[in-house]
């Protein structure tokens, strides 16, 4: 039996940019492929939305293995954005998601500013896409491999370009990297460039060295750190952005394992949450976290999720 969220008296629906979602729990890009595999365990149409693996213009093999290393309460990954390319994605993955009645937020990536625009343009007028998450946390080949999301101008250029290639009503979420001195600076810059919301956070850059070979464990040497180990960093980022931008819709993520973890993000200012690495441990996690949040709210005697969003900001409530 596929797991679906339990019915409760608590109103778990949320407003996110121009969207209204029945559940605040989404998948995280790269941790749910395009929903099909998870649909064996949970009914994928009953979660807030499926955020698909970042897709690029062309098919991409990704990096050589080893692509991962387990770390204390987390993992390091260097997948290298393996994927089928946008055309194949639309034809197969998106078609499947639509047929299932899933709500899909497509994560897109590019090697340069122009490529992001091209991928976005391909999604114009494609039914079933309720939003686009722009993964600016990948390296910019034109700029010595520097990550777009680490530079306010490069980040804004990407968002600007994507904005011009999608309809005005398409909600755009910019996905930010925590590896910056001041994340609010990047946040403000991409919002000004046309992002309707922010996805916070992508992985932290890390390295694991094999003490037998004395060499980095991943083929790409560095990789992205995720999982419960990064949760306090993620909560801090959401909190700082909420303080700087009181009204911007935020999808919070980074190490959410339980409903209680998700509640931290809501209180810090997230309007929705994505569950990533935890799905590898528990394929039912997106539904379980939803149920656990509902239970916590019920135990607190609250009637809706909206009542705890921003609760950590006394000046905002």
């Amino acid at each position, binding site marked *: 039996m596929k797991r679906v969220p339990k019915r409760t008296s608590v109103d778990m629906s949320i407003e996110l940019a121009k969207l209204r979602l029945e559940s605040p729990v989404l998948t995280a890009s790269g*941790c749910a492929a395009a929903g099909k595999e998870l649909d064996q365990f949970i009914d994928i149409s009953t979660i807030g939305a499926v955020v698909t693996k970042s897709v690029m213009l062309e098919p991409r*093999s990704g990096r*050589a293995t080893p692509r991962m290393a387990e770390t204390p309460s987390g993992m390091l990954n260097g997948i290298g954005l393996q994927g089928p390319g946008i055309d194949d994605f639309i034809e197969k993955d998106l078609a499947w998601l639509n047929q299932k009645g899933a709500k899909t937020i497509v994560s897109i990536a590019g090697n340069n500013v122009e490529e992001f625009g091209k991928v976005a343009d391909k999604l114009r007028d494609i039914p079933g896409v309720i939003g686009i998450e722009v993964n600016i946390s990948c390296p910019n080949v034109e700029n010595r491999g520097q990550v777009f999301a680490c530079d306010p101008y490069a980040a804004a250029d990407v968002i600007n370009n994507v904005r011009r290639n999608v309809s005005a009503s398409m909600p755009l979420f910019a996905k930010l990297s925590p590896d910056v001195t001041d994340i609010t600076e990047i946040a403000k810059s991409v919002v000004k460039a046309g992002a309707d919301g922010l996805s916070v956070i992508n992985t932290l850059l890390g390295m694991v060295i094999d003490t037998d070979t004395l060499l980095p464990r991943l083929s790409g040497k560095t990789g992205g750190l995720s999982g419960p180990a990064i949760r306090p960093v993620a909560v801090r980022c959401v909190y700082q952005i909420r303080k700087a931008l009181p009204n911007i819709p935020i999808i919070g993520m980074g190490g959410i394992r339980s409903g209680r973890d998700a509640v931290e993000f809501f209180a810090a200012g997230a309007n929705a949450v994505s569950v990533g690495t935890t799905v590898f441990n528990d394929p039912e996690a997106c539904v379980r976290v939803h149920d656990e949040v509902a239970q916590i709210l019920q135990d607190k005697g609250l009637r809706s999720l909206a009542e705890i969003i921003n609760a950590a900001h006394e000046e905002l409530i």
Partner: protein
Amino acid sequence: MPIVHKGTVVDNKKVGNYFVLTATAADMPKEFKPGNFVAVAIGDERSSLILRRAFSIYQVNDRGVYGGTVDIVISPHGPGTDYLANLKRNDAINLVGPLGKPFSLPKDPVPCVLVGGGYGAAPLFTLAEALTARGCRVDFILGASTQEKLFGMLEARRISTTLTVTTDDGTSGQMGQVTDALPEVIKKSNAAVIYACGPMKMLEAVANVANMHGIVSQTSVEESMACGIGVCMTCVLPIIGDDGITRMLRSCVDGPAFKGDKVRWDQVGKIPSDTWGAPVEGVN
């Protein structure tokens, strides 16, 4: 369809260098086919080891005293496998399965050689039963570095026409490797298919012998996995498709068994330059 099962340990006994752990598994045995594996959680929902570990399913029982159960063979050598080796009867254990594509079985009752390296023998016994049920002759080769690392000798002898044992150090059976014994077994049994599970180097060598003899091989690979269910893309290796194009396929859902002549063995751990979507000079 795979399920997530919060089960309990029914038994965990030491066999040579290994532990054979039996866990309750609800309906998993009904869905099971030889070659499937389970992904086992290490510790409870507060554990700091968040990735599941993959284990071939060794045996299933769908109507025991405990309902459905599965058996896995554990070779303790790291934090996850040590944890599982230390589990006691009635301890909690969380399994996801059955996972992966099963071995393909031949349509006709042809002779098959099954080659197991160390604990890699684990998935071959249910396979042998399925093959025997189809009227296939089954010959077994079990190999390991040393005697304690051999697994399943008695059982292999029981369900096969012949059993050949090899150890690197000669502590049991012939001294040498499984591939030293393989050509002779192929010849005697007139084998049409070889199934193999074990270390990657062994699989490569077995696939080469099969190719030289012009016979089909199915090799069950072991790649590092983060999710086991097909969502993370960590477990890939270069596989040649029916269209001749090499793609990085996920061993957890497209495998773990692949045709031996379709695996680019010398390129495992690399991206061959002719792979679908391989990096182009100056990009990536």
